[in-house]
Structures are given as C-alpha cells and as structure tokens.
C-alpha cells in the first residue's frame, strides 16, 4: 500500500566524522508526515549521534537534513527531543517543567497555561503539579518529559530509548500513552530503541542500522493493525524477522 | 580535513590566549607605570620582578627572601601539624561518638565564628610577641576547618557500609578503623586543603601585626616605609608560595585518594 503522505524529513547523505572516527556513513532516507518510524541498531552504532545531527546539536560533516524541504532551523521548526538520560530541570516543579518549552518559544501566558493544564491531565500528573523532580519516581519523571515535549505540539518528535530504565508493565503503559498522543496530535515520530519488541509494537516502519561506520542495513514495513497483540503469530513472525536481520551484525 | 597548523592552533588555543593575556597585561602595566602619573602609586612590573629576583641575593631588612619565606613556612608548618593532629582527633571523636559531640560541639561552635586574627591581641597577651603567639593564631585558623571537615566526614559515613560491616561480624573497633576512618579521608583532605590556605593567610596576618621577619613583615614594612615595590615583591612571594602550598596539597590528595576523583575547582 503506497504511503501518500508528504515527506516531512529528508535525510540526504548524512555523514558524521569525529576526528579519525567515522560514525555515520552516507545515510539517506525520508520520513513521512505523521509517520511513526522506529530505528533499531546495535549498541553504540551512532543512533544518538544521528538524532543529535538531526537537531543540530552536532554539525554533520557532510550531507544535509531537510524538514518541510528547508534546512533544519530550531527556531522555525518545532522539534522536541526526549533524551535517554533524565532531563527534567531539578529547580522547576512539574508544571514549570512542562511549561519550559513553551516559555522558550515565547508563548503568551494564557495559552501556555492552557497547554500546561491539558498535558498535565493527559499524562495523569495533575495531582503532582507542584512537586519537584527529586520527589518523583522514574516513570513519573519520564511522563513529565513527555508532557513537556508534547506541550509544544512539535511537528517532529525524537525519542532516544526513553523507556529503557523502566520495568515492563510501566513500559507497556507508557507505550500506549505515547501511541494515543501520537494519534491525537499527528506528530511525526522518530523513535530509537534496541528493544525489538518495542520497535515492532510501535513503528509503522523500522529502519535497521549497521555497526560503525553506520549505514542503513534495511527497512521493514510494519502494517500490523492496531492495537497490536504481542503474542499474535503475525507479531512474533515480524519480530523474529527483525531479530534475524540484527543477528548478523 | 583541517590543516596541521590550524589543528595545532585549535588545540593549544587556551595556552596561547593565556600568554597573550599576560603579555598584554604586563605591557599595559609597564606603559601606565612609566608614562603616567599613576606611576607614583604603581611601580612598573619590570622593576618589581627585578627587585624580586634580587631579593634572593640581597637582603631586605636583615634577611634574604628565602629566609623570610622559610620563616613564614616554618611557622605555618609547625602550627599546621599540631592543628592536623588535634583537628582530626577531635573531629573523629565528635563524629563517631554522640556523647563527645554533645559535650564538645557547643563549645567548639562558640569558638569557631571568631576569626583567628581576632585572637591576636589575646594571644600576644598570653604568649608575648614571639613565635608562640603566631603558632597559636595559625593553629586556630587551621584547626577549625580541619575539625569541621573531619567531623562531617566521620558523621556521613555511608550507613550501608556500616551495616554491611557489622553484619559481617566486625567488632566496633574494626568498624571504626576499617570503614569509618578510610571513608572520612576525602573529607579530611578537603579540610586540610582549606586549612593550609587559611594557615598561610593567617601567618601573613599575624606577621603583619607583629613580627621582625617573614613575608608578612615584608609587606607591612613596605607600607610603613612607603616602599610600594617592596610591598608588591612581598605580595608576589606570598602569592607564589600560597599557590605552591595549595597545589601540593591537592596533588597529595590526588595521590592518596586515587579512588575519589573530586571535580570542580
């Protein structure tokens, strides 16, 4: 089935070299608007470097990244990035943290207040709005980060193994919450993980990367209907297929 | 790919800028000193440096520079050693035993806020004008920091470690010598570092108030005689030795506490 959505992100010949070390080697691919793309690869293969290049935190050595057909401009394009590490600001309360992105973008106060209320509700943290990060559990912290990201209603959301530290039950719950938010806002999502099951559960498409110097090994379409059942035969087959591809790293 | 020269420049930019910074400062200084009225107050850097070098062979007052420095270091050294012994002993006792803490801490907390130099008049009254009163002042300056830090370190031993040791059947004596003391060492060293700097400052102060030789004497004599060059030569010596003391102590800690990498300044 042809994907008729327009192209949101165009990555062309992305190469990143640190002194002598070639990390990303001529990577090219497209991401469609509103698509949920998962990227899997071996540990240390430059997935994080890739995301950082996408957000201009690293300058690509060669190649270009376009969003809506223009070079990436963090002030113009609204991008949100959820890091692997905990990134809540310890000096701000939960609601102030959620407001953080909005205040950087100079959103007017009433509108910002509204958004903060809305997303506090969506992640179920309204009761904890005045708490500080050091009083919250790990999953709550990740929820704050997700609310903070979604509150800016980004056109592009990047996530780098955000659920890696959480236990399985929590992970399933947050994955479902994420899918809801994605559907609701129509955000384009690029989601990095080394957990194959998670990738198959979430993604419409899975990119498999190689070891350093990293290239795209292959791309797998995931048409399974939602909500996906992780014990269904189709799911398990797809999962095995991806796992086999990875086994040859 | 970057050229070899630009790569070299980038990596050594910091060192290069440091040199530029100093050169420009010294240049401006020299010009201002020689060609403006400020020269009355601010002798040229060249004169200060040459006088400084000269002081190692030509005596200022009754002694050469090394003797002055030596005397001051001697005073700090003796007092510091006593302060370390007393401070560690007291700090450990207060940290380990709640009883000792209850008895000693209030008295200690009363003495602590009084700056060591405020003791000078009393100290001279008790010990006279010689070295003893200076030892006392420097001792006080060092002792308080060492005690506080040792106390902190002893009190803050990780409960998990203590529990583990006791569970393994260690006697209280073993717990003390094998868990409490070693884990306090980084704190003790932090205290020693602050203390040596405080001690150096204290000896300068004590010598300024009353003495016949030493680096503090140098600068206060300079003041009395209106000899700005001598004051700045003295300050240069004080700064250099102060820096060496602080760095040496930090290096020592680095050696002895390899497992504890402290960050920051």
């Amino acid at each position: 089935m042809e994907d008729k959505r327009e192209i949101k992100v165009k990555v062309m010949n992305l190469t990143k070299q640190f002194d002598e070390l070639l990390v990303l080697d001529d990577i090219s691919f497209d991401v469609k608007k509103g698509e949920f793309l998962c990227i899997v690869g071996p540990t240390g293969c430059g997935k994080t470097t890739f995301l950082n290049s996408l957000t201009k935190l690293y300058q690509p050595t060669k190649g270009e990244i376009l969003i809506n057909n223009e070079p990436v401009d963090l002030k113009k394009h609204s991008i949100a990035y959820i890091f692997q590490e905990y990134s809540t600001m310890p000096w701000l309360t939960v609601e102030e943290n959620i407001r953080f992105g909005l205040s950087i973008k100079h959103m007017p106060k009433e509108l910002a207040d509204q958004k903060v209320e809305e997303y506090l509700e969506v992640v179920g943290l309204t009761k904890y709005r005045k708490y500080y990060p050091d009083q919250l559990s790990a999953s709550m912290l990740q929820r704050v980060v997700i609310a903070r990201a979604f509150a800016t209603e980004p056109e592009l959301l990047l996530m780098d193994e955000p659920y890696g530290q959480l236990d399985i039950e929590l992970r399933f719950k947050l994955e479902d919450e994420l899918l809801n938010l994605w559907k609701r806002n129509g955000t384009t999502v690029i989601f990095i993980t080394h957990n194959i099951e998670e990738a198959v559960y979430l993604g419409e498409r899975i990119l498999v990367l190689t070891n350093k110097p990293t290239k795209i090994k292959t791309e797998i379409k995931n048409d399974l209907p939602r909500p996906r059942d992780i014990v269904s035969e189709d799911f398990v087959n797809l999962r095995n297929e991806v796992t086999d591809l990875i086994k040859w790293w | 790919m970057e050229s070899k020269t630009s790569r070299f420049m980038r990596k050594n930019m910091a060192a290069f800028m440091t040199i530029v910074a100093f050169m420009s400062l010294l240049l401006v200084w020299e010009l201002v000193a020689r060609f403006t009225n400020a020269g009355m107050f601010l002798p040229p850097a060249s004169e200060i440096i040459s006088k400084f070098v000269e002081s190692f062979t030509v005596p200022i007052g009754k002694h050469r520079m090394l003797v002055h420095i030596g005397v001051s270091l001697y005073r700090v050294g003796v007092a510091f050693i006593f302060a370390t012994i007393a401070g560690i002993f007291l700090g450990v006792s207060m940290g380990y035993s709640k009883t000792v803490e209850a008895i000693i801490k209030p008295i200690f907390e009363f003495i602590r806020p009084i700056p060591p130099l405020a003791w000078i008049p009393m100290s001279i009254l008790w010990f006279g004008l010689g070295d003893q009163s200076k030892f006392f002042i420097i001792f006080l300056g060092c002792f308080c920091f060492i005690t506080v830090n040792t106390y902190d370190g002893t009190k803050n031993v990780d409960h998990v470690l203590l529990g583990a040791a006791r569970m393994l059947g260690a006697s209280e004596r073993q717990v003390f010598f094998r868990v409490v003391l070693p884990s306090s060492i980084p704190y003790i060293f932090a205290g020693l570092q602050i203390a040596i700097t405080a001690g150096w400052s204290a000896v300068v102060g004590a010598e300024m108030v009353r003495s016949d030789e030493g680096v503090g004497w140098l600068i206060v004599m300079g003041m009395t005689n209106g000899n700005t060059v001598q004051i700045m030569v003295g300050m240069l010596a004080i700064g250099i030795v102060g820096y060496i003391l602080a760095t040496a102590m930090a290096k020592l800690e680095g050696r002895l506490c390899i497992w504890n990498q402290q960050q920051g300044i």
Partner: protein
Amino acid sequence: MKNKTAKYKYRILSVCSVIAVLFIWELVTDILHLISPMMLPSPAKVLNTLIYKLTGGVNPDGATLLQHIAASMKIALGGYTVGVLVGVPLGIAMAWNRKFEMFAKPLFDVIRPIPALAWIPLMILWLGIGYWSKVGIIFFAAFISATINSYAGIKRTSQVHLWVASTFGASKRQMLFKVAIPTALPMIFTGLRLALGSSWVALVAAELLAATRGLGYMIQVARMLGRPDVIIVGMITIGVIGYLLSTVLEKLQNKYVKGGK
C-alpha cells in the same frame, strides 16, 4: 520513643558542658585566683564590661560597642556588596563564554592565591587609613569567593539540560538565563556566604592594623591599654555578628533557592 529520650539526654549534656566551662572559668579566676585578671578576666567581669559598653560606655577606646559595630558593619557591607556585584557576573561570564574565559581566567588565577589580607598594605598606601582602603581590601576578599563559586556553579550546568533548551529553539541568551543560571544558583549562594565570611575576617584584620573605629580597633586598643576584658567582649561580638550574618544568608538560601548545597 527511645530516640526522643536519647536526644533529650544529649541536649542536657550540651547545656551542662557549657555551664561547666563557665563555672570552671569563674572558679579559676575570681574565686581561686589561679590566673591573674591581666591574663584572663573572669566571666563576671566580661559580662560587666559588655553591659557597660552596650549601654553607652565609651571607655577606654572612645566609642560604645554599638558605635564600633556600626562602623565595622558599614565597611564590611560596603566592600562586600561591591565585591559580589563584580564577582558574580565575572564568574558567570568566565564560565559561560569560552573566549572570555581563556583571556580572563589566567589573570584571575594569578590574583587568587594572594590572601585578601596581603592587600592591606597596598590599599592603605594607596587609599589611606580611612574608609576606602578597608572597602578595597574587603572587596578583594568578597570578590574572589564570589567569582570562584559562581564560575564553578555555571560550569556544572548539565549538557543534557542545555540540549533540551537548544532543541526547543532557545537562543544562547535564553540558555544562559533559563538553564545555566538556575543550575548555578545554589553554588552562587554558597559563594555569597563564603564571601561574607571572608569579608568579615578581612575587616577584622584591616581594623587591627589601621583604624580609628570599629571592633578590630577596639580590641587592639584594649590590648595596648591592658584591658583584656574589653578584648574578650570584642571577640565575642565579632563572633556573634559573623555568625548572625552567615545564618541570615543561610536562611535566605534555604527559603528561595531550590537545589543542592
């Protein structure tokens, strides 16, 4: 419940300890005359003198205790304020701007090992024995602590937090004010406290050497006139005020600054 009685027991022990010290002190001086009053006046005498000087007694140094305190505080706070107003922004700038750091930090590192006290002779020679020379000395004492701690605070800014702001499109200025400075605030406050402590110490030193008013002057004169009771009153006052100043800042920090020590 056992803990409560234990705490209570230690409290009593502390109180007893202080009382015991005072008692022994009194015993050894006034009662048994083991130490001459020239060496160590009795607590009773000290208390007497304290009350005398608090209530308008101007002997032997020409001013009441409150007048001396006012004189000292004026100078200390003056130098301190200028010192931190210069030091905090300087520390922040050095930590935030790499180019500025490469130029300014080496110069700062050269001044740093010189104790504030060592500036006294130079300041007095340049600015006389009045108000300004002391302000100058205290400026140095405060400025150094404030700069060092502000610098360290900003340097501790987490890369991840900066990245979060950057991805949201923050300008460098926004990153400084919304991430770096809030991160550094606890350490900046620590710097302010340390600076206050150094200022007070530097003040006492300066007054010992050259002053006509102030607590340091008071105890120096007292020594020359053989009045150890006044010396002790002075020392206690110096200690108490230093302690109060530090506690005020600490309370302010606990109330308004969220974050580590």
